[in-house]
């Protein structure tokens, strides 16, 4: 950093006497030899002196006396004790208001890259097979055996639940904006998953898939807790959910399920006597 830049960084502190003795000595000695900084500092000082002339209109005492009654009236209308969720647009704008320039540039670059990849895929990937595949889908689906369909639904349920749990577990209220968690969306998905869980549990009831049944039951409890969280700022309740995930070892259970499934897929690729078994068999 050049001496002029260092000097300009000290202007604000120097004007309000927040500067330490060493910095003050540096500033004074630099201003003595640098005409540019000297004139800049003088200009800044004059501007601030003019700004001191600004008279802020002082409301009358009557205004202050009636302040509480006006606020009370508004509170009656708005009922502040009912939690009000902030719109995503407002949260987004706020997040970017004080973000440093480099963060905005990086975000823009990332958006452009993602957009480029998406457009590239849309424009240059062969579309005919995709259409054919889409046309064949209903026919294939109708031919799928009920237990295979059940397995797919169970996998889908676990995968979606995992994403919800990871979002919550990785959320750190100390460093992140609570609204970035997008709790209303997480709750909506959690409610859908709780409904799905009751279907899956009925499907498992007659089989011997004990592990899967336990996992679905554990997930159902956690998802219910998430669906009933009061707000993004209810940190204590969020912490309880995290503890619940930890104490039940849910993520470990999910990993074990994933591992078993990937082993099964590998076995299917290399024909073996048990390859025809498509169920999760947990």
């Amino acid at each position, binding site marked *: 950093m050049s001496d002029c830049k260092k000097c*300009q*960084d000290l*202007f*604000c*502190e120097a004007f*309000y006497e*927040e500067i330490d003795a060493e910095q003050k000595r540096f500033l004074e000695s630099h201003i003595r030899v640098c005409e540019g900084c000297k004139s800049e500092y003088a*200009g*800044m000082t*004059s*501007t*601030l*002196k*003019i*700004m*001191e*002339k*600004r*008279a*802020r*209109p*002082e*409301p*009358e*005492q*009557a*205004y*202050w006396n009636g*302040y*509480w009654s*006006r*606020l009370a009236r*508004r*509170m009656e209308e*708005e009922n*502040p*004790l009912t*939690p*009000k969720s902030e719109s995503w647009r*407002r949260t987004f*704008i*706020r997040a970017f*208001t*004080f973000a*440093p320039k480099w963060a905005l540039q990086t975000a823009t670059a990332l958006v452009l890259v993602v957009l480029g990849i998406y457009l590239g895929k849309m424009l240059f990937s062969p579309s005919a097979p995709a259409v054919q595949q889409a046309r064949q889908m209903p026919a294939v689906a109708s031919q799928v055996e009920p237990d295979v369909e059940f397995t797919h639904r169970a996998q889908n349920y676990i995968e979606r639940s995992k994403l919800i749990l990871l979002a919550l577990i990785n959320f750190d209220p100390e460093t992140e904006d609570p609204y970035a968690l997008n709790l209303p969306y997480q709750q909506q998905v959690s409610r859908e998953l709780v409904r799905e869980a009751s279907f899956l549990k009925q499907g498992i009831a007659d089989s011997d898939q004990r592990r899967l049944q336990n996992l679905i039951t554990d997930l159902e409890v956690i998802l219910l807790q998430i669906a009933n969280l009061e*707000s993004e*700022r*209810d*940190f204590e309740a969020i912490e309880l959910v995290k503890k619940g995930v930890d104490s039940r070892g849910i993520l470990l259970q999910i990993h074990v399920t994933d591992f078993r499934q990937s082993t099964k897929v590998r076995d299917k690729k290399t024909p073996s006597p048990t390859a025809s078994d498509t169920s999760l068999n947990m």
Partner: protein
Amino acid sequence: MVRDEQVLVDRISTGDNTAFQEFVERYKKKIYYIAYDITGDHDDAEDVSQEVFIKVLRSVKTFRRNAKISSWLYQISVNASIDLLRKKSSKPEKLMDDIERADIQENLPGSSSLAQNPERSAEDFIIQNHISEALQKVSPKERSVFVMRHYNELKIREIAEILSVSPGTVKALFYRATRKLRKELSFYLGNPGLEVSDE
């Protein structure tokens, strides 16, 4: 947080309305002034300050007890003021001439207008208007930093904490704001005869 502030916040979180009223009485001026400095308008400042108290009531249960209450209030006030300015800027705004502005100043509770206060010179009135206009030409972000340091006497470190940015960013925003103000008010700076004295 100071002990009695903590007690007050605890009482509010249990739904004690008297405690909330005491809290409002204690901080209403501070919040009104910062909102006025950023928005430059009495009605907007009133609106923002009320909104801040409503937000306090909504989120008091989640307030970290080790945090500084004034920083928390400034943070909500600055955000609410900037949100309001953003909302207003998206609506078409009627341009005001000096006469309209003078009318508004006259109707402001407690403000002394030109007619009511003959000793206040016309020149002073014009300077006041130019300063307000210059301040409104600075971006809301830069203006927030400027008014917090210059008119509300917050330290650079405190402003950085309120805005969740580094002290370096605060200094840079302050410097940019001052440069813009200097440009807007160059008429006074370039005319030694008209330059405002220190008194």
